[in-house]
């Protein structure tokens, strides 16, 4: 054991002397590893960034909100089981809230109806199409997890009397009113006049699919007057304790069955959705992207590994006589094997460290230049890439090092 440690120490000393003596060659070889590590770690930061984007997007949906809808989220193969379901009516929010109120120790806080459709928003000459317009009650403010840029949500009176007021998403307000305040301005949703009483702060988009900043919220009664609610709606239910999501979901299913007067044994004719379901659908896609990305960038690391293998073969060839001498002095096979492995690993580690620093710099620069670009540098990345460097060194150095270890000492000594 002691002997092994001494041998390892000597091997590291020799490895660094060797690298120093062949600076150019070592640098060029390390370059291959550097490029590989930069590619892989950049991909790693991008994947983490995307992952974080996913998380952010998901949390916009609210991790304490259950969605009662006709369709489940995610892929549906047996669509015929859902198509015949009765639509979810906004009016069901009332009975549902009654059931919730009657349930002792209910895990549910409040159910809010939300009806929606696409509209075109207009102010003067300015126009925004595909605005997602929601009609909901004043209680929506209780489940809203976003900040106001200016103004406020509508109140019970405005809600009950169906006043034509609206709250605009950030992007719409900006498109219609530019730098001016939108508060108190009269604008049009599909030609129906609405008074702006609030503007939401910027929230960003959900996976780039739809933007929360591209929404308008109006009182449900006004929505009914302007657009009708024939298309159905959804109920958003806030839960009290997000750590007991599963139980809350069970309670909600029971409550909905009561509201819908479903018979025991009858299948639910509604779906209770939550962000976790989206996560489950998206995770395989995300993983697929990650695998493909890492595979492609891994190829550049592979090229770097071939460089290491090549340089180790050269080093073994050049030092054949030295190997013979070492064997004559009592080096075992293991000693020689480790020596060349350590040389390969050392170059890889140097390459890995340089590559990692470059990635760190790039991520920093990108983060400064494009704050919204999803890149993220992490400590685990440091450990992973160092581990990868070591593994690459061992794998690519093994064949030449093994060859060196197995050299016949007499043949090695006679080598010129």
């Amino acid at each position, binding site marked *: 054991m002691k*002997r092994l440690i*001494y*041998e390892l120490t*000597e091997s590291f000393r020799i490895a660094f002397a060797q690298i120093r003596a062949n600076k150019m060659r070592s640098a060029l070889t390390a370059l291959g590893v550097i490029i590989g590590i930069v590619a892989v770690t950049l991909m790693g930061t991008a994947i983490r960034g995307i992952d974080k984007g996913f998380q952010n997007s998901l949390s916009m949906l609210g991790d304490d909100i259950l969605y009662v809808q006709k369709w489940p989220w995610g892929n549906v193969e047996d669509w015929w089981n859902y198509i015949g379901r009765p639509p979810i009516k906004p009016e069901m929010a009332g009975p549902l809230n009654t059931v919730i109120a009657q349930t002792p120790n209910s895990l549910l806080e409040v159910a809010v109806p939300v009806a929606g459709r696409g509209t075109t928003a207009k102010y003067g000459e300015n126009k925004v199409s595909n605005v997602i317009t929601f009609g909901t009650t004043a209680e929506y403010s209780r489940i809203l997890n976003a900040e106001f840029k200016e103004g406020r949500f509508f109140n019970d009176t405005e809600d009950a009397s169906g006043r034509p007021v609206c709250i605009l998403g950030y992007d719409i307000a900006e498109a219609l009113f530019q730098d001016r305040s939108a508060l108190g301005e009269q604008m049009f949703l599909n030609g129906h006049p609405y008074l702006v009483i609030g503007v939401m702060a910027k929230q960003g988009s959900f996976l780039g699919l739809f933007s929360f900043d591209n929404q308008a919220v109006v009182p449900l009664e006004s929505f009914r007057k302007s657009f009708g609610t024939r298309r159905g709606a959804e109920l958003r239910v806030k839960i009290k304790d997000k750590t007991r999501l599963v139980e809350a979901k069970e309670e909600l299913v029971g409550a909905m069955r009561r509201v819908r007067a479903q018979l025991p044994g009858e299948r639910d004719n509604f779906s209770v959705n939550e962000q976790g379901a989206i996560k489950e659908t998206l995770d395989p896609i995300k993983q697929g992207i990650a695998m493909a990305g890492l595979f492609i960038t891994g190829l550049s690391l592979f090229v770097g590994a071939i460089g290491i293998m090549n340089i180790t073969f050269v080093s073994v060839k050049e030092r054949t006589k030295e190997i013979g001498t070492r*064997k*004559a*002095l*009592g*080096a075992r096979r293991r*000693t020689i094997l480790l020596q060349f492995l350590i040389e390969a690993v050392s170059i890889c580690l140097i390459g890995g460290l340089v590559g990692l620093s470059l990635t760190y710099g790039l991520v920093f620069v990108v983060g400064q230049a494009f704050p919204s670009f999803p890149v993220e540098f992490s400590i685990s990345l440091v450990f992973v890439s160092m581990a990868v460097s070591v593994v690459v060194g061992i794998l690519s150095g093994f064949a030449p090092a093994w060859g060196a270890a197995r050299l016949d000492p007499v043949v090695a000594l006679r080598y010129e």
Partner: protein
Amino acid sequence: MAPSLAPDLTGRVTRPAGSLVIDIADVSKLYKMGDEIIHALRGVTLEIRRNEYLAIMGPSGSGKSTLMNMLGCLDTPTAGRYLFNGKNVAHMADDELADIRNREIGFVFQTFNLLPRSTALANVELPLIYAGVPAHTRRERAAQTLTDVGLGDRMTHKPNELSGGQRQRVAIARALVNHPSIILADEPTGNLDSKTGVEIMELFEHLYDQGNTIIVVTHEEDIARHARRIVRLRDGLIESDGPAL
């Protein structure tokens, strides 16, 4: 007139031989070179005892180095028996042979074979590393051995900062440092000018006086006459074996 390079043999002592170190019987070695089979050794029988100073002589290609490598456990015989300190070398695994070379044998090469990027001290320490000697003791012993061969003031020099004679002294220190049973030197003066060669042979003489067992391979009569016994090889066979005159 050039100084005579013949050794001054007056007044030298021959120490009594000790226990048997090397015992080879009817050893032969074949090398295959493509279709051709080369008989480097054709049945050599030899006994070498502790405290001997032996020269192996013979023309180039007579099998001196082959015999030397065999004696040094770098190579194993194709046929025949080799007992080193009573143990049969043929039955040893690679690592066992490596350990024998490390502890029992000190090699000195014609081309010195020093590690170019290591200091004299680090070169001499190498066999001690393989022996598992702790750093502190290692340094002390290596430094002492270098001082013994007259290089106490050259320890931190790299081989390319030393003369040929000094390099060979470093190599001899490296061979000595682990207190081996025998020192094997294959043409140790072959790459040195005659004057330096004589100095190296004087160093061997000194080492012999101190109780080392030495085997020197050479094809020069003047060098061989430093030894107390001369074995002559020809075409892989022992031609003669007797005391040096």
